């Protein structure tokens, strides 16, 4: 029952991975994460709720969101996953997209923007502060997930933001 592999680029907390899927059975998949194969059995037990066995390790993952920004609750933790369908492109194109495509930087939690640390057009290093979001009493610096140029900053100081909202775009 082998089918053609499908491939995605995921971005989690500033780290990119290439995830390739190939269906092997009714619920069985081979999944390569950055080239390392994982055997995955996946059953959708309720809409958006996946019972997974990843190399025989069970997880229940609740997935919600649109094609570009998923919120995944798994193992008691909330993980925000940005995902790009890369299967239509060649490997080189994927690499290019991964390396150089514009990336949305999203809010990890609801809060209030208290300061902008960079300007649109500015080139920043990986880890450089772009803006500061305050959630109750804590200030959280939002940093560049990779070196690049800031294409756009979509928020202003004082503005409240929701989880997943795009704060800035970096290229």
């Amino acid at each position, binding site marked *: 029952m082998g089918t053609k592999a499908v491939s995605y680029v995921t971005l989690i907390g500033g780290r990119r991975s290439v995830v390739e899927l190939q269906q092997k059975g009714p619920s069985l998949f081979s999944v390569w994460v950055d080239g390392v194969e994982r055997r995955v059995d996946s059953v959708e037990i309720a809409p958006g709720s996946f019972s997974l066995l*990843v190399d025989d390790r069970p997880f229940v993952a609740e997935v919600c969101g649109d094609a570009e920004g998923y919120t995944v609750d798994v193992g008691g933790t909330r993980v925000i996953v940005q995902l790009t369908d890369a299967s239509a492109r060649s490997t080189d194109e994927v690499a290019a997209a991964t390396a150089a495509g514009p990336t949305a930087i999203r809010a990890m939690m609801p809060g209030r923007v208290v300061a902008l640390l960079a300007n649109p057009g500015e080139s920043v290093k990986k880890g450089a502060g772009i803006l500061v979001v305050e959630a109750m009493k804590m200030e959280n610096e939002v940093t560049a997930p990779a070196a690049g140029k800031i294409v756009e900053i979509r928020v202003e100081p004082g503005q409240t933001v929701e989880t997943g909202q795009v704060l800035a775009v970096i290229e």
Partner: protein
Amino acid sequence: MRSKPRLFRRLLVANRGEIAVRVIRACRDLGIETVAVFSDADRCAMHVHFADVAVRIGPAPATESYLVIDRIMDAARQTGAEAIHPGYGFLAENAEFAARCEKAGLVFVGPPPAAIAKMGDKVTAREVMKNAGVPVVPGSEGVLQEEKEVLAVAQALGYPVVLKASAGGGGKGMRLVADPGEIKSALRAVRSEAKTAFGDDRIYLEKFVVGPRHVEFQILADRHGHTIHLFERECSVQRRHQKVIEESPSPALDAKMRAEMGAVAVKAAASVGYVGAGTIEFLVGADRSFYFLEMNTRIQVEHPLTELVTGVDLVKAQIEIAAGFPLALRQDQITQVGHAIECRVYAEDPVSFFPSPGKIEELQVPGGTGIRNDSGVYQGAEVPVHYDPMISKFLAWGRNRDEALARMARGLAEYRVRGVATNLPFHRWVLSHPRFRSGQYDTNFVSEEYHGLEGATADGGGELAQVAAIAAALAAWGRRKQGSETARGQRQADASRWRDQARREAVRE
């Protein structure tokens, strides 16, 4: 009142959420019919479904429903209730409400109005306790007026000091003052806060106790002059003066201190002619000195801890006391067995602690050995935006603290909620923190140690992040597959439409 006591036929619960459910359960166990009251936001709430009779008392805002004494009195009259249980919050510590119940011939399940009033005013409470020989935190003699007076007392006590509203309580209406320069602004802030919140801007001063723990004693007093305590609860895991995790026994007390504080608590309650269930809150300093902090004249959120370690049903006891029964147990029959921990599970963001109201799409509550869950919601229920967003009080009991910790950690790992964000990740963080696990923590623990959860998956390299990436990819793959089937249908439809068009155009030529 001194005739042979009998239980009420019907009792009205003037509250909502988990505490309303808690009281209804106790009434069920006693064979008492219950009347639930509800606002428009709570028409389908759990406490409505659990009661025998349910009466609407107004629109969603509490100020137009749960806080309106007249509406509660009307509901009681209309349904023939004989008693009213106020729960905690809302009207629970409102002396006027207790008096109105008495006047209407209804039994208020709580202390006499005078005891509520005395303990509600912090300056009076300090005075009463000092006179009864109960240690209080060093501070001003009564209410302070002028800024000059405040400065003088603060100087005498030594900085840092705490400026408090006399009508305050529960963490509201207070400011820490580190040096004389801060007095002016603190005075203005506390006065204005107190004026707004309590309509009473009287203030007083207390010395700041360094590295304090918050330890409270549960007491029960009947109408026949018996007062007992049911040991302590440790409530030092607080976020902005709000308790989030409690445990019993307190890791800070030894047997001698426990006996001493218990005796003081009984004395304190007896000194105000207390009747019912109440709590004497103490501050315990790093030097193991302890001071009376305040008395809560109601059932406490965290009362199930005491139920787990003593086996006594406190809400049942409250109702029996209100009906005139003498206490069923003597002090020497109360023992502390094992260890219990409570986590308050809220619908709120675990990092920002913003409330996250909404519909509970999925609720998988843990079970098994040593687990107790007191919930006010069900799967499919709404957490309204108007009230405290509590989902449940989640408790674990064990033979000792280690067993209780292990069971709580296990239970938190099993607990699943979908549809609203919860503070479960915060609780899991506390349960895994060495300072909490060691038992050596004070009320500064959360503010000193908690800086959000970004450590967990920030770099995306951990196993959970990989699994999340796989899950997201599978979800996208599933949609694409579904999408491509829909799209194929769409393409065929488009193609046939295109052919029709082409044909028509061919005809024209």
